[in-house]
Each structure stands twice: as structure tokens, then as C-alpha cells.
């Protein structure tokens, strides 16, 4: 089966062609156009600008896909949420138009589920890889979710305040580093000493699988408030100490959850999965166990449509496609379907 996928939930316009049977997924084409440089000029994302920028870019990007001919696309997949509603709508309306005019089903895809399926791209994940424990870390999410099978999610824990990616972004902003904060903090941290400053590890020892990064953000703030004019080395040391605190909490809670749930695989998902220190620490903690660790290819850590295509193909197999594409709508506050472990 071949699916055309569209992603416009925030500041990336992305289209992809993905082929697969719902268990393995091959990326035929994957195009991403980023608006980051535009938003950098404004100092932040501007919803109206984000939406307006998707409009002229999306149709030519679809036209630029060459790996298909009329009649050989089985379905269209589109991110319906969570995200900025005006931005989401550009992708959703375009996808509806395509599905209606081609007479094929439209599969609504959750952006976070897309990040989970980024791990399945260009790989064969066999049925015995389940259950899979997913650590989802991005600008808006920090969650531990147990995936018993495709599309079956049990929530174990989440952040009680700020997401891990948000903590990276806000730390970068406080240190005068560039947006987006994840890569710039990570780069500075690679030149710093992680033991230079003692920062808190919020909720490290609690017995739940929840996280909290708001206090860590405040601790960084208090630390740098004491600096007169910090040298590059001091900034690098703060970044390294901060990153070590975030990584330690994420890895420890994931390990705790794995010891309770005994998954076959631990999967890192979301934008923060590009962080090398986090990848390394997660792989190290499970190195001597029977639990495999999967991290997405770096290309697929940031927002892209290939991951939406994979989740869409799976959704198609599981009967989640809308036969009438016109009923699909953007849902900015969409949550991953599933239940809490105590429900």
C-alpha cells in the first residue's frame, strides 16, 4: 500500500510518500520545508505567519513528489493535532481535497503517534518487539507510554508542569543561546563540564512515572542570576550540568517503568530524541538487559511527514480511515487515544 502524508502542525511544512503493509514501512520520498529562519526574525512562532507560510509552500511540495502515478495512491494521511489550529487546518483541508478528488480514504493522524512511528521507518519492527515502552520527549510533551501492540496505548506518567523540550528552549533563552534551544544547549553542553554546577533532579526518587522540569528551569535562573558576565566556558558548564540533570531524570524514570512493565523494547520518540547525551544514556542503561533500545534516525526526529505516513498506513490497516474525508477536522488539543494504567 502507498500513502501520501501531510504534516503542518507547527513551523514545518512536510509531505511524504510511504509504502508498507502496516508493520514495515519504506519511505519513498520525504520533503520538509522549515520556517524556523522566518520565526527567528520574530523571536517566536507567529500562528498567523505559520499558517500563511504553509499555504503557498504545500501545493508545490506535493507536486514535487515524483514517486507516484495516478491511481496508485491508496490513502492520504494528515496530522489533525495536536498543534496550532490555523497551521493544522492548512494541511487538513488540502488532504481532504486530495482524498475527495481521488476518491480514496483519509486517515487522521495524531502528531505524537507520528513521533512514535518515526521509529518504524525504513525498519522492520517484528511483532515480538512488543510490548514497547515509549519515552516521548518534545517541546510540548514528556510522557511514558506502554504500547502493547500497534495503536494500543497505556499511559504511565507525564510531566506535571513543563515538558523537557520546553526546559531546553527556556534554558537556551536565559543563556542567550539561539532558538530552537535543544540543539544549541546540546552543542554548548558538549564543551562543558556536567559536574561544574549542582542542579536539582526533580522527582528523581518518586515512585511514580511523572516528571517535573519547572523547578529545574528556576534553578538555572537562580544560578545564572549570580553570574556577572559569564564566560563561554561557564555557559557551556551550565548547559552540560542542566542537560545531565534532565537526562538523568528521564533515563531513571524510564528504567523504573521498564523494570515494572518488562517491555521487550524501549523506544525514544519526539524532537528531544535527537539529543546525543539522552540517546547514549538510554542505550547504556539497558545495555546489559534483554531490552532492546530503539532510537529514530536523526532525519526523522524533527517534524516530518514520513512518520505521519507510517502511522497513517497503520491506521488504515486498523480501520481508522474516514470513508468520508469531509468529516475530518483539525483538533489543536488532540490527545493520543489510550488509557491510564489504573483505568
Amino acid at each position, binding site marked *: 500500500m502507498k500513502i501520501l502524508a501531510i504534516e503542518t502542525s507547527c513551523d514545518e511544512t512536510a509531505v511524504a510518500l510511504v509504502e508498507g503493509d502496516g508493520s514495515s514501512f519504506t519511505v519513498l520520498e520525504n520533503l520538509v520545508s522549515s520556517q524556523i529562519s522566518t*520565526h527567528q526574525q*520574530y*523571536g*517566536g*512562532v*507567529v*500562528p*498567523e505567519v505559520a*499558517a500563511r507560510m504553509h499555504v503557498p509552500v504545500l501545493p508545490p511540495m506535493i507536486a514535487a513528489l515524483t514517486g507516484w502515478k495516478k491511481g496508485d495512491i491508496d490513502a492520504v494521511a494528515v496530522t489533525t493535532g*495536536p498543534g*496550532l*489550529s*490555523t497551521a493544522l487546518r492548512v494541511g487538513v483541508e488540502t488532504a481532504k481535497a486530495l482524498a475527495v478528488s481521488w476518491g480514496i480514504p483519509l486517515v487522521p493522524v495524531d502528531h505524537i503517534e507520528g513521533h512514535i512511528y518515526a521509529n518504524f521507518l525504513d525498519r522492520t519492527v517484528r511483532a515480538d518487539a512488543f510490548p514497547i515502552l515509549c519515552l516521548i520527549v518534545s*517541546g*510540548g510533551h514528556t510522557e511514558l507510554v506502554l504500547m502493547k501492540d500497534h495503536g494500543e496505548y497505556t499511559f504511565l506518567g*507525564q*510531566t*506535571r*508542569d*513543563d*515538558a523537557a523540550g*520546553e526546559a531546553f528552549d*527556556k534554558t537556551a*533563552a*536565559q543563556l542567550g543561546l539561539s532558538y530552537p534551544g535543544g540543539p544549541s544547549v546540546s552543542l554548548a553542553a558538549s564543551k562543558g563540564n556536567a559536574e561544574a554546577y549542582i542542579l536539582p533532579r526533580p522527582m528523581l526518587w518518586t515512585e511514580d512515572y511523572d516528571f517535573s522540569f*519547572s523547578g529545574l*528551569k*528556576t534553578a*538555572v*535562573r*537562580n544560578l545564572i542570576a549570580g553570574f556577572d558576565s559569564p564566560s563561554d566556558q561557564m555557559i557551556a558548564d551550565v548547559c552540560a550540568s542542566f542537560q545531565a540533570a534532565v537526562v538523568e531524570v528521564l533515563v531513571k524514570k524510564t528504567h523504573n517503568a521498564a523494570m515494572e512493565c518488562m517491555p521487550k523494547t524501549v523506544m525514544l520518540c519526539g524532537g528531544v530524541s535527537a539529543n546525543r547525551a539522552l540517546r547514549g544514556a538510554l542505550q547504556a542503561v539497558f545495555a546489559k538487559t534483554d531490552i532492546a533500545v530503539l532510537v529514530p534516525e536523526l532525519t526523522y526526529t524533527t517534524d516530518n511527514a514520513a512518520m505521519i505516513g507510517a502511522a497513517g498506513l497503520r491506521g488504515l490497516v486498523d480501520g481508522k480511515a474516514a470513508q468520508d474525508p469531509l468529516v475530518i477536522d483539525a483538533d*489543536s*488539543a488532540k490527545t493520543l487515544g489510550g488509557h491510564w494504567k489504573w483505568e
Partner: protein
Amino acid sequence: MKHETQNIQEVHTLAAQLVETLIDARVVLLQGELGAGKTTFTQGVAKALGINKLVRSPTYTLVNVYSVAHPRIDQLVHVDLYRLALVNEQELKQIGLDELVRNARSLVMIEWPERLEKPVPGLTLHFALKGDVYTVEYK
């Protein structure tokens, strides 16, 4: 009025004490630097209003809405404009904020109101954190 609190628990207690004042104002603008206690304060308000859900930072979602069972309001609206550049009136409409602000049965708490091109009328709370002391000030 100036309140000084020593820890998160006390920020929550203060929020609970101020709930009715906040509802009188209906729109509350939370000013203060990163980490000064704006979201923590809003969590305290939510708790006092009987909201059981986790009130998380709306930085990435922009607007979070919570249902409330209260004689004067039906919902708590938690807004964070941090990630946005200057917000003009058209954008206010697009993120749906203008409607939420007009709704007489909402308590709207806005973080980073500095991003608004044209100020929305409301009660302004100033947050600051020096050492371990959180201060909350309003007129």
C-alpha cells in the same frame, strides 16, 4: 498589595486566598520572568477551583481550558503567549483568545501579556523570585 511566599506550597495557598478576587477581575495578566512562579500560581488557582487535572505549562499549546464547577464561572482558561512574537488583534482572534476573554463565565489567566500589541484589560499580577522568596504584587 504585596505578598511574599517561601515555597511552592505557599504560592498555592496564596492563589487559593486570591481566587475570588481573580474571578472578580475575570481576566488576570501574569507578568514576571521565566521561573518566577506564574504557572505554579495558576496551578494553585486550579486546585482551589477543584480542578483535578494536571495543570501543565501551556507554552506549546498556547491555550488550555479546564471545566470548573463554580457558581460564578464555568471554565478556567490558561494562556501562555511566551512562544509568540507580538500578538495583534487578528491573531488574538485566531488563537480564539478574544472570544474566551469576552465569555463572562470564564476566568482567563494570561502568562506573558507583554506579547500583546494592545493590552487586554484585566488585573495585573507581578511575579518575582529572589533567592527562595517568591513575591506577588498587584494594585
